[in-house]
C-alpha cells in the first residue's frame, strides 16, 4: 500500500524566513503533485512533477522531486502572509492507476 508522509504537519514561521516542507512516499512513482488549500476552500494545483530531478518554481515556492529517494520538497523563500494555507502532496502509484494518494497536509502559518 502506498503511504505518503509529510513533515512537518504544522509549521509557524515568520515573514521573510525560508523553510522547506518534505513529502516522502513509500513506493516507486515518478508522478507527484503539490496542492494548496485555504481554510474552507477547495484544493488548488500548484505543481505537477513528472520526472526524477524535476524542479518547478512559482513565485516564492519551489518544488523538486527525487524519485530515487522517494522524496519531494516544497521550499518557501522569504515567506509572506499570503502563503498561509495547508499544502498537500499527492502521488500516483502505477500507470493506469487513477488513485491519487494524498499526504496528511502541512498547515503553514506565516506570522507578520
Amino acid at each position: 500500500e502506498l503511504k505518503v508522509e509529510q513533515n512537518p504537519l504544522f509549521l509557524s514561521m515568520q515573514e521573510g524566513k525560508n523553510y522547506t516542507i518534505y513529502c516522502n512516499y513509500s513506493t516507486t512513482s515518478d508522478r507527484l503533485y503539490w496542492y494548496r488549500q485555504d481554510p474552507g476552500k477547495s484544493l488548488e494545483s500548484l505543481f505537477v512533477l513528472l520526472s526524477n530531478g524535476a524542479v518547478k518554481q512559482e513565485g516564492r515556492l519551489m518544488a523538486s522531486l527525487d524519485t530515487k529517494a522517494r522524496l519531494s520538497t516544497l521550499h518557501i523563500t522569504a515567506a509572506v502572509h499570503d502563503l498561509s494555507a495547508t499544502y498537500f502532496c499527492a502521488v500516483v502509484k502505477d500507470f493506469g492507476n487513477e488513485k491519487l494518494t494524498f499526504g496528511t497536509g502541512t498547515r503553514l502559518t506565516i506570522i507578520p
Partner: protein
Amino acid sequence: NAGVTQTPKFRVLKTGQSMTLLCAQDMNHEYMYWYRQDPGMGLRLIHYSVGEGTTAKGEVPDGYNVSRLKKQNFLLGLESAAPSQTSVYFCASSYTGARTGELFFGEGSRLTVL
C-alpha cells in the same frame, strides 16, 4: 468559467436518510472523482469514473454509490447515511487522468450526519 461545481454546499442528515451529491464540470473532462476529507487526514478517493457510463471503486467506497450517466455529471449517493460519513466531500475532474495530468477540484460539500 464555472469549472467544477458541487451541489449542495452544505447538508445535514439524520442517520439512515439518503441523499445525492451532484458534481458538474464544463471542461469536457473524461475523468471524474469523488474524494472525502476528514480532519487531520489527506483526501481519500471514494469512487471515480474514466468516462461516461463507467465507474470504479476507490480507496473507501463502502456506503456510497455513484453514477455517470452524462459526461459532465458525476453523482455520489448515500443510501443510508451514517455518522461516520460526516465529512467534506470534494469532486474533481481531469482531462487525461490522475496519472498524467492535474486534477481540478470543486469547492466541496460539507455533510453532517446526526
